[in-house]
């Protein structure tokens, strides 16, 4: 397949995954900061909930990377 298209796909994979993570963290992050302000002992739990959606962007990274591997073997656009 066209290397350029693959590169765009890789960019979309990580970019959209990043947006997804951002949307998810917006809620958990605000709640975690609130909970920690009320009781500093909540910090650990807060970090866990905060960090859960991060996995999404890691998925995005892995897919983008695998796609990029494809791109290096594909013919470049003339």
């Amino acid at each position, binding site marked *: 397949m066209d290397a350029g298209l693959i590169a765009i796909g890789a960019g979309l994979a990580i970019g959209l995954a990043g947006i997804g993570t951002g949307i998810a963290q917006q809620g958990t992050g605000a709640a975690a900061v609130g909970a920690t302000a009320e009781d500093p*002992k909540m*910090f*650990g*739990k807060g*970090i*866990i909930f905060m*960090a*859960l959606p*991060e*996995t999404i962007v*890691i*998925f995005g*990274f*892995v897919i983008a*990377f695998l796609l990029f*591997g494809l791109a290096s073997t594909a013919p470049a656009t003339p």
Partner: protein
Amino acid sequence: MIKPERMSRIAIVGPRKKLDTVIHSLYELNLFHVVDFVEEDPDVKIGSPLEKASEVSQKLLKLRSIIRSLHLEDFKPESKVKVEEIEKSIDQVIVTLDLEVSDKMENRQTLSSRIRELETHNEILDEIREFGLPLDCYFGYDSLSVFTGTVEESVRDEIITLQMPVEVIQKPYEDGYLVAIFCKKQNLEKIRDILNENGYQEILSPCQSGDSGKCISSNEKEIGKLRESLDRADKSIESLRKKYGALLLAAEEHYSIEVRKAETPLRIAATAHSFVIDGWVPKSSYEALKESIGSNAGDAVTIEDLSVTREQENEAAPVKLRNNRLARPFEMFVELMSTPLYNEFDPTFLVFLVFPLFFGLMIGDAGYGFCLILAGWVFYAKLGRDSKSLRTLGLIIIAGGIFAAFFGLFLFGEAFGLPFHPPIENPAEPSWEFLFNYPLHPIMEKLIDVKEFLVISIVAAWMHMGFGYIIGFFNELHHDRKQAMMKIFWFLILNGMFIQMLFVARWTVVGGFFFDIIAAPFESMVMPFAGMNLSFVAIGLIVTGIAGFFVVHGAGAAMELMEVLSLLANIVSYTRLAAIGVAKGAMALAFNTIVIDNFFHGGNVILIILGAVVLIVLQLLVFALGSLSSGIQAIRLNYVEFFLKFFKGGGVSFEPLGYERKYSEKSEV
């Protein structure tokens, strides 16, 4: 190291007159965790504070008010003050200072408020001077009203259209106008309405006669004199701070400790003539405590080991983590999550092993590594002088920095994002070769061997979480056999997934290495069966694990089934090690290339100096961002992926009676 320190529950019983001595020795020992007494029996009540309590609290109250008036909160005394000295002199000092400080502060207050008042006067006079009229023109009329002040919009035209005898003086001033209006008293209301509509603010002259210029200068003279007195007052307050600061802070500390001691009886049981203190002491220190109290309080006080059962101990004992000196800073990370339960495995040592390793792998740069070591030292030795948590943070940063430098020197071969040697694939890339020839070549190119880096992350996931399940198994073994079995099945599934991933990645160097060790023996076992490859082993392990869920939980295992996918997500989650390492490396490389290509190649000295400044700023940015995100991600992998496999938390920390003296010291008896 592995489990928290064993505790004994003890009771200290004695006559009431010995209570003071016993509490005193417990505070000195710093070994005894009190269990708060709850009143149930009408004959046994909560104790009442020691006699000295109210007297000491009074002193403390006065001391704190003096300390606040003198603003001693940020005073740094040069030396500690002996307790004997405090007790000898403090009463006299309190009596003297109580009067002196309040007098001086009051005096200072009066002076500064008078200065403020005169300064406002001058501002007003300065504004009125604009009109050029003597001050007595504004006052003392029988039939005229005078308005002086500021308005937002011009009012002159509006007032003139009223067609009445009026004199309007108007000058532009700041955003609006300054006005002086002289009108007949019967027209006062109409003029006021117009002014109010335009945001009128009245200015009243404090002097009612003479020239405004003279008035201002006489005010200024007075302000000058007042400022001199204010300086003198400040100096005398400063001299009080210097003279008594150390003593006051030390006394405040000493009497806070005394008040805490005096109020300890509120936490214990007492009858009319005796007392009982209930609490926990580390098993290893029990004899020392018994001996020390025995020698201080005599035979009248008995100490009894209550010999609680192991179950009661597990349920109620406070948790004192015990780790060696190297691992101890990492207790902070565990405590931040939650204090482990008493009978639970303390993960501090594993965090100590894993955190710096992950952190170092993500940074993976000799330059940043050495900078981190330096930064950690600054935290430890300079900023952390008064703060234990900053010192701890400093030690953690140093540990991470050592690993980062190690990986930078021996694995990735780069410093500040610049490789020691240009990669073979791209010999034109800038490198440190222009400055020196580093003897070692990198084992891995961070930005080229990304696949190897990803496989390393997966191997880290397997080892780390595998440990998690093994610890979980031992945690649950004496507690809940079913849960312990579950950990084994999860361990099987983890291995199945790992073997399948190795099978896919066996053509990489790291993947091939682990494939040969872990998976190849299985492969030779299944190969004889026609058409089977290693995937069948992997699937077999996963299916066995899932079947195990149903054996243990029956139909309820369907819920666990969902979790299998999240285990896969957990494994993939470790690829953040590679992701952050690569992203940070790429960012540094990009900055370096931009600066080197645009600033350094022309040979223009000014451009080179400018380029150096830009480069330093950009490098600082990469350093700060990289260290922060690596730190957060490294601890997250511990908290989310690792701890959740076994850690319960929610224990009660061991908080013995005791104190820490910063400003005062007790001479050895």
